[in-house]
Structure formats: structure tokens, C-alpha cells
């Protein structure tokens, strides 16, 4: 009865387009299909009985406690205007260089990404902060928006990204399943920390190539991104320097402390996130930006984001349960393993499907719905889980940047002034999409780019 599973998949996609909340659509549609299946004798009701214990497993998951803590840290940094100060000081530092403002935006994007990891939020914040400045400085709209879009999505790949936490958790259980099927009873594991470390080199490659592109463009077409002299640059060098120190050093220290303790194996991601959140609170307090009202906002934002993520996880769990009940899982696994050209072809097919799903669904949904279904099959073919995780992350990041459906483009369109044409946004992002694809193919060709560093530590 696998065709019912695929029909369900199709119908869920259609209902999702109506705009009803994703989590409830996934769960509700799956339930309706299960009910029909039970009535027609094509679905075993015993599947549904496991749902409460599956939810219990989700809320009892220790790895995922890192999610609210990282969100808390990110929201605190954002609400205390630390990102804003970063951008101001960095662009001041770079105002003498051609294309300097563009480079500053990329660097802040990478740093902010590292501290928040929420894609939409980063693109919106960057759009509000830097787009007016860049346009005023005389940057071509397409180049300004392209840079902002690309930098805003870095949050998915640069650790400590929340998305990597979720992906790491889903991958590790898929990996265990894959090994159990092959009768390996002392399975190897892949952890969130491993994924963080593995994402480091690819993430830095992306940042490096973005910057290179902007600098080359500034050299070749100087008129598209003029030097940027603002009032503050007339200030004494000493003063400027101390300003930069004040804005940059504490936040950099925080980010490196969080990342360093995970990479060094000193702390688990959850512990690092908790300490990072405390550090962010301390920073905000020292800057006089912390009040009871702010704390209230921060904790409410955190709670709402957390519960949004987990309701999707619960809905997706219901969906994949029913999908499996109709035999969809084994049909997909048979399809993937029967491919004559081997695991690389199977991987390529999965990647293309995920890329297209990225036009409709966000990272979290794709991680929770697709990875549990295709993950075990791919991993059982001997594909490295770390490599798979990094490929998925970059693939989806590229999907979110690709016109005309990319998510990031919508977010930026929402905050960009009317004078910026939509076609400018599309055109400006294309070179960055090309960079993404280059990095994706490089990692496909040389998996060591993702797997070497984790194996060293």
C-alpha cells in the first residue's frame, strides 16, 4: 500500500500551501489518512498506539535541550543590539577599502549566524541594519541585496547553528537504525558536536569565497561599490580603535568560548549553550541593556521558538509514523538501494528532491520529515553520516537562496525599500548561488573537507 503513503505526501504538500500551521497540517493529515487506512484495513492501528511514547521520547531528548539555550543566547544578543554595534564598528574599520562595507556585512553575517542560527531572523535583521547603509553608500542594489541574502543564510552552516543541532540528532538516530539493520550491535555514533566541527571548514570556505567575490568585483567594477566614508571615520584613530575593541572583543570572546569548548571536547553542546546564554546575559547587563521587561521578552521569544520547533517535530513524527505504516519507508528504501549506479546516484536523487522541497518548506520541517525516511537507507549504503549532514545543510542553504522561490529572498523582499526591484534581488544573489554550488561540489568530490577535522579531534 505504499502508493497511499506517496499520495499522503502529495496531499500534505498541497494542504501546506494553504498556509495552515505546518506542524498541525502534518499531524492532522497523517491522522486522517490513518483513519481511512484503518477503516479499509490497509493500516495497522497498532502504529498509532506508539504515538504517546514517541512524544515522550521527543520531550525527553537530552541533546535537544541545546535548542532553547542557543535560541536564548541568540535572542539576548539580538535584543541588546550587540549585532548592530558589530556592524557599525566593522564597517568603520573597513571603510577605507573598496568593497569594505560588503566584506563587513559578510563578516557580521557569519558572526551573527554563529550566535543565532535562525535564518529568517538573520536575513531580516541584516536587511534592516545594512541595506539602507549600503544603498546610501552608493552600492548597486543587486550587489547589496545579494550580499545580505547570502550572509544571512550562513547561520545554517556556521556552528553553533540550531539547525545543525536538530540535524545532528535526527542523523544520529538514522545512523543507529542503519547499523542495527546491518546487524552491527555496537553502533558507532555521530554527535551534534561532530557535526559542528565538520561544518567549520565548509562554513569558512563559504565566507572566504563570498569575501573574495566581493573584493574582486570591487576591483573590477569600482563604481558598483564605492568606498564608504562616514562621519565617524574623521574621529581620532585611538578613539575609533577603542570603540572597535569595545564592540568586537566581548562578542567574539563569547562566540569563541562557546565553539571552543565544544570543539575542544570540554563541554557538550547543551552545556556550551547554557554558558553562552549566561555570557550573553552578562554582556547585555554590562552594556546596560538588560531590564526585567527585556528579560521577559527574551524568555517569551525563546519559549515560542522552542515550542514551534518541537510541535513541528511532533507533527513530523506523526507523519513519518503513518508514512511507515503504509509501507512508504520500505518502498523508498527499496527504490534507493535498487539504483544500479550505486549510493552516489541515490544521494544525488535525494539531494535534488530536498533542494526542490526547500522552495516550500523550511529547514526544520525538511530535517524532521525527510531525513528519518531517507537517512537510514543512505547510511546503510555506507555513506558517511557527517558528510551527509554537511551536504544536506549546504544544499538546503543554496535552495533558500535560489530565485524565484528561495526563502531568504522573500524575507529580504519584506524589509527592502520599494526602490529595490525584486529582479535586483534575484540577479544579485545568483553569483552567491554559484559559489554555494561550487562549495557543494567540492565537498561532494572531497568528503575530507567535512570529515577530516572531526576525525582529528
Amino acid at each position, binding site marked *: 500500500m505504499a502508493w497511499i503513503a506517496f499520495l499522503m505526501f502529495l496531499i500534505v504538500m498541497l494542504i501546506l500551501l494553504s498556509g495552515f500551521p505546518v506542524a498541525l497540517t502534518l499531524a492532522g493529515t497523517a491522522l*486522517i489518512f490513518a483513519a481511512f487506512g484503518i477503516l479499509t484495513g490497509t493500516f495497522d492501528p497498532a502504529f498509532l498506539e506508539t504515538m504517546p511514547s514517541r512524544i515522550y521520547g521527543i520531550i525527553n531528548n537530552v541533546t535537544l535541550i541545546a535548542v532553547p539555550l542557543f535560541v536564548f543566547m541568540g535572542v539576548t544578543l539580538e535584543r541588546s543590539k550587540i549585532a548592530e554595534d558589530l556592524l557599525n564598528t566593522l564597517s568603520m574599520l573597513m571603510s577605507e577599502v573598496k568593497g569594505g562595507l560588503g566584506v563587513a556585512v559578510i563578516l557580521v553575517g557569519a558572526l551573527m549566524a554563529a550566535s543565532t542560527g535562525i535564518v529568517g531572523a538573520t536575513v531580516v535583521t541584516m536587511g534592516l541594519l545594512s541595506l539602507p547603509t549600503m544603498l546610501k553608500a552608493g552600492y548597486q542594489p543587486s550587489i547589496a541585496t545579494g550580499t545580505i541574502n547570502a550572509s544571512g543564510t550562513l547561520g545554517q552552516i556556521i556552528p553553533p547553528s540550531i539547525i545543525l543541532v536538530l540535524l545532528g540528532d535526527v542523523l544520529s538516530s538514522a545512523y543507529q537504525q542503519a547499523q542495527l539493520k546491518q546487524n552491527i550491535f555496537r553502533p558507532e555514533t555521530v554527535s551534534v558536536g561532530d557535526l559542528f566541527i565538520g561544518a567549520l571548514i565548509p562554513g569558512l570556505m563559504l565566507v572566504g569565497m563570498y569575501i573574495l567575490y566581493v573584493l574582486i568585483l570591487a576591483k573590477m567594477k569600482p563604481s558598483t561599490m564605492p568606498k564608504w566614508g562616514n562621519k565617524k571615520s574623521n574621529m581620532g584613530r585611538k578613539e575609533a580603535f577603542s570603540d572597535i575593541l569595545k564592540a568586537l572583543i566581548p562578542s567574539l570572546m563569547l562566540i569563541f568560548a562557546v565553539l571552543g569548548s565544544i570543539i575542544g571536547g570540554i563541554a557538550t553542546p547543551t552545556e556550551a*549553550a547554557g554558558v553562552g546564554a549566561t555570557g550573553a546575559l552578562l554582556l547585555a547587563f554590562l552594556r546596560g541593556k538588560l531590564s526585567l521587561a527585556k528579560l521577559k521578552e527574551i*524568555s517569551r521569544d525563546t519559549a*515560542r521558538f522552542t515550542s*514551534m520547533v518541537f510541535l513541528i517535530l511532533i507533527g513530523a513524527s506523526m507523519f513519518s509514523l503513518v508514512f511507515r505504516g503504509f509501507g512508504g519507508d520500505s518502498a523508498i528504501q527499496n527504490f534507493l538501494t535498487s539504483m544500479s549506479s550505486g549510493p552516489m546516484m541515490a544521494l544525488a536523487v535525494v539531494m535534488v528532491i530536498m533542494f526542490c522541497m526547500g522552495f516550500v518548506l523550511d529547514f526544520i520541517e525538511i530535517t524532521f520529515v525527510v531525513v528519518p525516511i531517507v537517512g537510514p537507507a543512505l547510511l546503510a549504503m555506507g555513506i558517511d553520516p557527517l558528510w551527509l549532514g554537511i551536504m544536506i545543510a549546504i544544499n538546503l542553504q543554496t535552495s533558500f537562496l535560489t530565485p524565484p522561490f528561495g526563502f531568504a529572498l522573500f524575507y529580504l523582499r519584506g524589509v527592502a525599500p520599494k526602490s529595490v526591484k525584486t529582479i535586483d534581488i534575484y540577479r544579485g544573489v545568483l553569483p552567491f548561488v554559484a559559489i554555494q554550488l561550487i562549495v557543494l561540489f567540492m565537498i561532494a568530490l572531497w568528503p575530507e573537507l567535512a570529515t577530516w577535522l572531526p576525525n582529528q579531534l
Partner: protein
Amino acid sequence: MSEILNRLEVFCNSVGRCVAWLTLIMVFVTSIIVIGRYWFDLGSVRLQESLTYMHAAVLLLASAYTLASGGHVRVDIFYSKFSEKVKGCVNLVGTLFLLFPFCIFLIWFSLDYVALAWQIRESSKEAGGLPFPFPVIMKSLIPLASFLILIQGIVIAAKSLLLIHKRDH
């Protein structure tokens, strides 16, 4: 009528806003755990477990509040362009056919599961973990959260109905 609806929504919201403070406590508890482990070589299973319990309470009990404040992700390619009336229709139909069945299903199926845990006075599986009734309370949060979402669903359905109706006249 709308008075009752408002009260129900306020109730769901206040539950969510209360548990939201737990995120702040979680941050502090994690830091205490880290300090205890790395500086004093102290570990507490109970403290660790309290983190899990707070986390569970936040993600489950804040769900209705998140729903009320529009925090659950939608695919808004088309939705953002719909008129208020069409949005109301989407929310009404979705709530009736997707939200209600799922919440009722969860309440129905998890009640037995929770009742069993109460009966056997389940305590933590970890040695030195939190005793009865904490683990059972955590399980009970599943039907409780489903109930809260159901209430908020009723509010949304009724409000959507009013919205659609109002525009007709």
C-alpha cells in the same frame, strides 16, 4: 460569547507566559551544572533531570500560547496574499479537520499511557534521579498540552467564524 473566548485565550496565554520564565531558569541551571562539574567535580542527576523537565514543560505548555500569537510556522507563499476572510476560512477548516482530530487523538491515546504511569507510581529510571511523581507529571503534560491547544483551537475556530460572518453583512 466573545467574552468567554477572550478569557479562554488569556488563560492559554498566561500558562505559556509563565512557563516561558523556565527558559531563564534553564540557562542558570545549565551554568550551575557546568560550574559544579568542572570546578568542583560535583554532578547531580536530579539537577540534570530538572533541566529535561523544564524543557518539556516549556515546549509543551507554551504551544497553545505560540498558536495564539501566530508563532507556529506557516508556508506563507500564498497565505500572506490572502484576504482576511480567506485567511479565516483556512484557519477554520484547518482547525476543524486537522487540529481538533489530532488533539483529541492525543488526549485519548495518552490518557491510558499516563494512567498506567500513575498506577505503577513510576519514578526516574536513572539511579539518584527524581522520584515519583515528577516523571509521571512530565508524562501528564502530554494530554494537558493537547487540551490547551484544543482550547486555543476552539478560540481560533470561533473567531474565524465570526470574522467570516461579519464580512458577509
